[in-house]
Structure formats: C-alpha cells, structure tokens
C-alpha cells in the first residue's frame, strides 16, 4: 500500500505532462515532426526492444559504467583509508584531489586517448577516476569525522585495533559511504553517456548522437528518456540497498 502511494506521488506529474503532450500534438498545436506524440514513441520503443538494439546499447553503457564504478569504488576506499591514516599524504594530495574533483572530467579524455588510444580503456579509466574522487572525498571525510566517544568506548571495553575498525569505524562510516556510492554512480553514468555521445560505436550516448545525425527523431526521444529512466532506477536501487544495509539511520522524510 505504501509503495503504491509513493509510486503514485512520484508519477502523477509525469503522466499528466505526457497526456498534455499527447493532446497537444493530436490537435497539431505541437508539430509532430519535432514533438512526436508519446503514443508514437511507445511504438518506437517497442520496435527498438523487439529488434534487440535497445538492449544491446543499454548493456554496453551499463558495462562501461559498472566496470568503471566498481574499480573506482575499490580504489577510492583504499585511498581514503590511506589518507585517513597519513596526515602528510592528506595535505600533499588535497590540492590535486580538489582540482580533479571540480574540473569537468570530460576534459581529461583527449589526454587519456593520446596515451591509451581511442578505446574503452580510456573511457572506463575516466569513469573510474570520477567515481574514485567522490568516494575519496566522502569516505575520508567520514573516517575523520567519527565521534571519538565511540572509539574510546570500544577501547575501554577491550576492543583491539582490528575490532575497532570492523565494529566501529566501518559501520560508523557506512551511511556516508552509501551517500557517496549513490552520488558516484550518478556521476559515473552521466560521464559514460557523455563519453559515448562524444565518440563511441555503441552505447546509449552513441545511440542518441546517431539518432540526431540521421534525424531519427523518435529514436532520439526514446533514447534520451531511457537515459533518464536508467538514472532513476539505479538511484532507487541504491536507496533500497541502503535501507537494508544501514537500518539504524533515521529514515528520510
């Protein structure tokens, strides 16, 4: 019942907009050449699914995103732990990390391609870098921000350093790590699609670009919409995971 209601709360505006759009193109207020009605787009979506093209493109995009994301998370967590331990390294790397974090990662692509060639290795590496940066900034912040009382309490009851890491630091940082995962995945997906848009033979981004180049307007709309749907799906998935794995935090209103 609760999920039905939250589904309704999140969907009614979109349904309303789609209905208006349908009506407006039906009565020719909107030019169906540039704004094909949702009913037509639904047909395009169906044929794209049936032909298997859509599945293939989405899988390629997800493959790049996931490989980069997982690699970036692993690297990011390792680096965060090192930076949390060493003040010297933290101070030395701080300007570099800030600079890399705040610049558009896409600008690094030409350099990477120069070194590694125009292939998926450069793309995935860039996605991993973007992911790792979000993880490093959030996780090292969480590790340093831990409440000393909890550590003192555990030590006072006889916990050794390994137990303190496992029973105190890890769970204490977990909520912020989850936020970081969600943000990082968002960044990774956006970056992957942008990279595909720029130069790639396949993937959702390349599908969008090709649709524009060949003036396949329906395909253009469908693929852009799907990029959005993909984002929403994964954000939702992370939220569900977070609720399951971090049950002690205050539920968001």
């Amino acid at each position: 019942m609760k999920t039905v209601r939250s589904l309704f709360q999140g969907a009614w505006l979109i349904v309303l907009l789609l209905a208006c759009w349908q009506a407006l193109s039906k009565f020719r207020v909107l030019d169906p050449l540039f704004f094909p009605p949702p009913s037509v787009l639904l047909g395009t979506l169906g044929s794209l699914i049936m032909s298997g093209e859509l599945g293939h493109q989405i899988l390629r995009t997800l493959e790049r995103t996931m490989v980069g994301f997982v690699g970036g998370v692993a690297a990011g967590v390792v680096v965060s732990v090192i930076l949390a331990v060493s003040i010297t390294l933290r101070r030395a790397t701080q300007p570099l990390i800030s600079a890399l974090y705040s610049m558009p990662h896409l600008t690094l692509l030409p350099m990477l391609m120069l070194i590694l060639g125009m292939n998926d290795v450069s793309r995935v590496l860039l996605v991993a870098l973007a992911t790792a940066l979000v993880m490093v900034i959030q996780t090292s912040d969480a590790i340093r921000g831990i409440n000393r009382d909890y550590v003192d309490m555990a030590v006072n009851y006889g916990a050794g350093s390994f137990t303190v890491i496992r029973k105190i630091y890890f769970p204490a940082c977990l909520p912020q790590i989850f936020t970081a995962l969600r943000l990082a995945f968002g960044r990774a997906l956006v970056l992957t699609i942008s990279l595909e848009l720029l130069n790639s033979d396949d993937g959702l981004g390349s599908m969008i670009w090709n649709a524009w180049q060949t003036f396949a307007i329906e395909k253009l709309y469908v693929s852009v919409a799907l990029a959005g749907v993909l984002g929403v799906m994964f954000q939702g998935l992370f939220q569900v995971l977070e609720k399951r794995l971090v049950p002690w935090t205050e539920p968001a209103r």
Partner: protein
Amino acid sequence: MYNHLIVTMKDAVLRCARLGLTYPDNGRSVRALTDVSFEVRHGEFVSVIGPSGCGKTTLLHVLAGLLPPTTGNVQLPESAPGLPPAASMVFQENSLFPWMTVLENAAFGLEMRKVRKAERESRTSRMLERLGLAGRERDYPRQLSAGMKQRVAVIRAFVGGGPVLLMDEPFAALDRQTRLRAQEELMDLWDAERKTVVFVTHDVDEALLLSDRIVVLSASPGTVVAEYCIGVERPRDLLWEPDEEVIGLKRRIFASLGLAVGLAQHSCAT
C-alpha cells in the same frame, strides 16, 4: 573546615595518587587536573562532584586508561592479559553504538570478553527484561527514549564491564522523573552485582542518595578539596529522609563547592 579523609586503605581497588593532567590548547598549556589523590574500596560507591569545567570527565578518562596522566598514577586491579581493562566507563552522551541493536549494545562488553553468543544473549536478555526493556532487544538506539538508552548503557557496564565502573553523569540529560527511576534501578543493580562505582555528577542530592562517599573537586585546575562519608546504610530508598547529620553534610558540601546560597537557605530554616 573540610574533613579530608585521605587515608591509605589496604583494600582499595582503585587508587589515584597525585594525578595531574596538562594538555596543549592553541599553543598554551591548560592544566585540567592537579594533584588529585583519592582511593576507592572494593564494592564502594563513590561520587565525584564539582562545578562544571572542573575536569570530572577528564578524570574519568584518565581512570579508564583512555588518557595518560601528565603526572601521578592510577592503580587498578590487574586484568588478565587479553582481557579488557578493569575499569569500564558509562558515557553521558553517545553512550550506545547507533549501528548496534539494544541487545548487541548491552552485550558488547561480554562480546569483547569472548563470551559465547548464546550465553551473552541469555545473560543480557535477562537483565534487559529486569529493567523493563523486554521486547526492545532488536530495536536500534534511535528508537529508544533518552532514559532507555542510559539504562542499556548501565546494563552493558554491569553485565560485561570490569569490576570497577566509571559513570560520567549518566543521568544528567534525563528529566527528573526518569532520573529518579534510573537512580533507583542503579541502586538495585549495584545491590545485586556489588561492583565498585565511581560516579561523576554535579547534583548534590544525587550524590547523597547514591554514594558511600563523596569526593569534591574544585574548578580549573581540578583538585580534591574535600571528601565526605555518608554513614547511612545503602542502598537507600528514594523516599529516604536525610537526618540532621546528612543535612549538615549537604551544607558543608555546598560550602566546599563555594555555594553560599546553600548556607543562607539553611540558616533561614533553622
């Protein structure tokens, strides 16, 4: 005027001798504690009282072994190698781990003592039940009231802590009714387990109700200005009516704390 009771006791379980603690703060060195000496006997309930900022919490951290003293030393019973320190602390705030359930929190001390899961759960559940927390074992701390949280923290100390418990104003944040109930439960628990307790508070009435002895600290730097014995059988009833002697004691404690108000009120009444 003060009846100092710094006698060396043969059966002392906790003895701190000329403790001093200085810490750096923005280039200056701040003296938090100076020359603090007192002893606590086995099974005794000692309250440490003093104005805020007198280093009471710092003192407990030193006793718990969480802060090394700059001068002096703390003597505690040896704990066997690999076992937790002999003195366990109950914090005023953040006294429970938010990511553990009530049961896991309460059983944490036993877990650190490598007690088997089934045994620690049965021992902890029994205690939770006794203090009215039955059915809350799987809840997280955020689902508990402030009073319940402190109850769980006290249970953890009594079930899995060392022979000496260090309590840092555990009931300071509770409303008056909840606090009375918590005090009563603490007396019950103490009566059942007979652990040695060092109880920090700023509430004179709380100290009088609970303790065998009261150590008064002065403000910055904290040092012992007086020690008082309360010669009334413990545990005491909440409705305990302090006699003339205890009221006199209370007046002297107020005086030691530098509270002339307490004196004036008393002289009006008599």
